[in-house]
């Protein structure tokens, strides 16, 4: 068995384009320009970049949630880029996603019980109500939520609790790979620390591979083994966390790191890097 779980080569994704009704041919906007990315078994990789860097599109492309115009995706040794929706279904259970905003991604009309158990039936992981409830109760205990939340709906929970439901929902299907897209960006630091610890512990216990997307390099540092820095649809730099953060090679990574305001007194920080960031500022 190869130690590589997910391998994407030369990924290109374009949005728009085509001919509108009777209109002229519109050029497509290419947002990923041949991206290569590898996730090993049990590894947590970070994908970091600013808005418009293509990090979310890349994550969605890995899960075949957006069509790729070029390139290939191999999952567990098998090329999945050309699979039909039907053929993808068994693979989908093994590739789960935790969303950025649990308020938007959890159905407000469904109870937490339905949200957690419906996918179990869909993927044939439970054959009876009781079996499904047992699995839901077990995962809730694991994410430190009381069983009483089963009969609540998402809006009755706090932001941190909702995010734990999002994590529980993904973990319940015993996937091999989880995509976590900006899952802590709206949370207070204390709640954020809890969610990150939970994800880190779960991935270790379950041997999960995780692709962790964030704009926040400090959050990436806390949870990722290896990091891809993206810029304008390309990989700018890749490396193990320790070397990337301690000896970044790319000027862009250095620029990103120095732009992060750390809670230290550093009177020279504000003036530093003025020239390099000014050029970006001029762009409208």
């Amino acid at each position, binding site marked *: 068995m190869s130690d590589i779980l997910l391998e994407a080569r030369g990924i290109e994704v374009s949005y728009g384009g085509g001919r509108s009704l009777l209109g002229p041919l519109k050029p497509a906007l290419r947002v990923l320009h041949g991206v290569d990315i590898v996730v090993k078994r049990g590894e947590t990789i970070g994908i970091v970049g*600013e*808005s418009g860097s293509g990090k979310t599109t890349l994550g969605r492309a890995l899960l075949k949630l957006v069509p790729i115009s070029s390139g290939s995706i191999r999952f567990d040794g098998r090329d999945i880029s050309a699979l039909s929706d039907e053929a993808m279904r068994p693979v989908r259970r093994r590739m789960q996603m935790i969303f950025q905003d649990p308020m938007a991604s959890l159905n407000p009309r469904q109870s937490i019980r339905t949200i957690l158990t419906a996918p179990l039936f869909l993927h044939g992981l439970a054959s009876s109500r009781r079996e499904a409830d047992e699995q839901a109760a077990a995962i809730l205990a694991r994410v430190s939520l009381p069983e009483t939340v089963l009969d609540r709906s998402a809006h009755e929970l706090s*932001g941190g609790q909702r995010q734990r439901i999002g994590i529980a929902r993904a973990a319940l299907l015993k996937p091999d790979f989880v995509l976590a897209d900006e899952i802590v960006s709206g949370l*207070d*630091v*204390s*709640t*954020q*620390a*809890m969610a*990150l*610890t939970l994800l*880190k512990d779960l991935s270790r216990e379950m041997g999960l591979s995780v692709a962790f997307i964030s*704009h*926040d*390099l*400090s*959050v*990436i*540092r*806390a*949870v990722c083994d290896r990091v891809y820095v993206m810029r304008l649809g390309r990989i700018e730099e890749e490396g193990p*966390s*320790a070397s990337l*953060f301690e000896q970044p090679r790319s000027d862009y990574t250095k*620029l*990103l*790191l120095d*732009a*992060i*305001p*750390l*809670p*230290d*007194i*550093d009177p020279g*920080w*504000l*003036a530093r*890097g*003025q020239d390099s*960031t*000014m050029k*970006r*500022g*001029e*762009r*409208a």
Partner: protein
Amino acid sequence: MTKPVLSVEALSALSARNGTYVLSDVSLTLQPGEVRGLVGESGAGKSTIAKAVLGILPSTIRIAGGWIRFEGDDLLTARPSVLRNLLGRDITLIPQDPQTALNPARRIGAQLTDGLRLKLGMNAASARARAFQLMDEVQIRDPARVFDSFPHQLSGGMRQRILIAQAFAPNPKLVIADEPTTALDVTVQKEILRLVRRMQEAHGTAVIFVTHDLGVVAKICDSVTLLYSGHVIEQGATADLIERPRHAYTRALIAAGPRYDRPGQGLQPVPERVFADLRKEIGQRETADV
């Protein structure tokens, strides 16, 4: 000792819905030209203080006591005509979200000159000239194009520059910046922080900078007020609070934030014991108030 620009004294506010305190005995003083960070987690009351100063509290929040003195005069009891003269001229706002704060249907130029004509009584020609001068101050390189643009034609950072220009346009004595960089990328955030600091120094303006980020506070604030659940937990010079925090909650909050230069940090939530002590302390303060 100079006269403070703003002095909030024993300010308390109640939620009209359930009668709980959203602000409890908050006091803070701001000297001319001082940049004060208002920092805390969600629900701490930092935005409530900002809104109280601006007189834009929602109807669900009721002031229960205290004073907000601007250059000595209480804003809470001031006549509407007095407030109308102060707000938008001596006290202005840099809003949080540059996407929604500008009118999408009007050109930038019209929106920049509105305030100048309305609040400062300028005529069209001098308002236009002043708008170009302001755009130069906030380092907009192609002012003619921006002046004729609609908001959607500009980047988030560019729109935030316009809002900063708007806020400093009347030479205010106090600017309230309500999380103005939360929605921006870090590199753009740094430019905006630099710009706020430079404008504030050039105009000698006092600034209240609302943020949830202690890092931002460390980089641009002279002083800081840390809030939790409507209470002031610790306040003082930024260097003191960041380097020698006195309160256990302040220490825990600093330790809970992840840092790219310290692997492993960012995975320890504020300990439940710290929250328990904090709630006890707050409970005692509220009982003592009655």
